[in-house]
């Protein structure tokens, strides 16, 4: 039994580390994106700041801080400032229930690689994601600019539309694992079929669910081909048209943090989490799961970026139709079939 104070202090330290890691990951996801898209397009991407442009995110961040911070008089000031804060806060929060590896033992204390292991981790993430809409909607509304308003409306309508499919696509996984706890969901995916196919959920018949999740996740994070809210060719910059300086950058922080969350969730729910071959000495065995997990996450992020370099974007009505008329029925069909199989088996 530890005291309340030390528990709180331990949590704060954990959280601070997690936030630091997450923000670094966000910065380097931007770097990765610029590099990868650059190479896709016969360019080099950032090269000037640091070796391979590795310090570019730092330079960008600093630049954003020193940019002119304009708060135009026509905005609804309170919400105009609150909107990026809301967006970033919720984007950074969802990481707290995501486990990045198995239990490890540090200095004799056995601890999960997670800020907190809760029973309903998945639901918490869904709840936090559903709150993320407000950042976008309020940004669009409070800016009092037509492009922002249209962008904000589009963004929020799109996010809530795909949230349904996203939520329904997870049900298959829930049926298979029988728990909301992300840790238990991952544990349910350990082992292999016939010794060589890992028992990841996508190999347990959730391939369609994974596809739905992938699409919905792209839409939730407003990425190409679903990046209509900030379709610069139509709405200039969508909901953040009127934002400048760090407030502008915060929406991007939120977007990339959400991407990372989504990638983590995909790895946990469909790709077997941190399961992978373990070998070597004990210290390596405790680190390897984290490595496998991070690899999956980066693989997923790479797909994100790759698609950005390849596809054009949908039109608004097509996007909505895709979400409601294709993904939603598909998600329902997937859950009914999964339910039937599992119910028959048990």
């Amino acid at each position, binding site marked *: 039994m530890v005291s309340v104070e030390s528990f709180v202090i331990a949590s704060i330290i954990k959280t601070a580390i997690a936030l630091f890691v997450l923000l670094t990951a966000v910065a380097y996801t931007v770097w990765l994106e610029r590099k990868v898209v650059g190479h896709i397009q016969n360019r080099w991407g950032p090269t000037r700041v640091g070796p391979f442009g590795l310090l570019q995110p730092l330079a960008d961040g600093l630049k954003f801080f020193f940019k002119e911070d304009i708060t135009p008089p026509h905005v609804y000031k309170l919400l105009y400032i609150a909107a990026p804060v809301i967006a970033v806060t919720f984007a950074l929060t969802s990481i707290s229930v995501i486990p990045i590896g198995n239990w490890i033992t540090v200095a004799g204390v056995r601890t999960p690689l997670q800020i907190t292991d809760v029973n309903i981790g998945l639901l918490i993430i869904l709840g936090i994601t559903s709150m993320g809409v407000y950042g976008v909607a309020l940004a669009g509304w409070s800016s009092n600019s037509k492009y*922002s308003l249209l962008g904000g409306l589009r963004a929020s309508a799109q996010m809530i539309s795909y949230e349904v499919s996203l939520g329904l696509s997870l049900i298959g996984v829930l049926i298979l694992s029988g728990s909301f706890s992300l840790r238990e969901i991952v544990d349910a995916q350990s082992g292999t079929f016939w010794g060589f196919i890992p028992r990841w959920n996508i190999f347990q018949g959730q391939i369609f669910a994974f596809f739905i999740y992938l699409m919905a996740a792209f839409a939730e994070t407003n990425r190409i081909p679903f990046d209509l809210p900030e379709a610069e060719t139509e709405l200039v910059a969508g909901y953040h048209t009127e934002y400048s300086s*760090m407030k502008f950058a915060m929406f991007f922080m939120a977007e990339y943090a959400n991407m990372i969350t989504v990638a983590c969730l995909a790895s946990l729910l469909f790709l077997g989490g941190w399961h992978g071959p373990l070998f070597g000495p004990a210290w390596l065995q405790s680190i390897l799961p984290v490595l496998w997990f991070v690899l999956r996450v980066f693989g997923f992020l790479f797909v994100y970026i790759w698609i950005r370099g390849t596809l054009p974007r949908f039109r608004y009505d097509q996007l909505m139709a895709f979400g409601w008329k294709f993904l939603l029925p598909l998600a329902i069909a997937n859950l009914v079939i999964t339910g039937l199989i599992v119910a028959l088996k048990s």
Partner: protein
Amino acid sequence: MPDNSFARYLPLLIHFLLAGALACAIVLLSWLIGYRRPTRAKLSPYECGMIPVGDARQRFSVKFYLVGMLFILFDVEAVFLYPWAVILRQLKMFGFWEMLVYIGVVLVGFFYIWKKGVLDWSRTSPRKGEV
């Protein structure tokens, strides 16, 4: 310390507060560091370089809020499905049938709105003057 179930959520709360504090700090810091030399042009709403006609505070198409309503309904449906999914193994076929009935009824509504054309976003009024 974990003396009850809430202890597990305390770090979540702390994380949330810390993230919020961080976000506020960023805004504050950029407000402190960033310079401000406002001019009239900088402060006017972006309108592609023109003087805006009308403002953004206008009534909008009803379609958007229909999405909001449908979202609530399907979200409620999904929320009911979560506990079901988790205990389906215990409920066995009985659980499957009861959910099938439930989904069936909701699907009736879904196809109703589909047929009503609510999901057709491109359906637009005919072009002006076109016969």
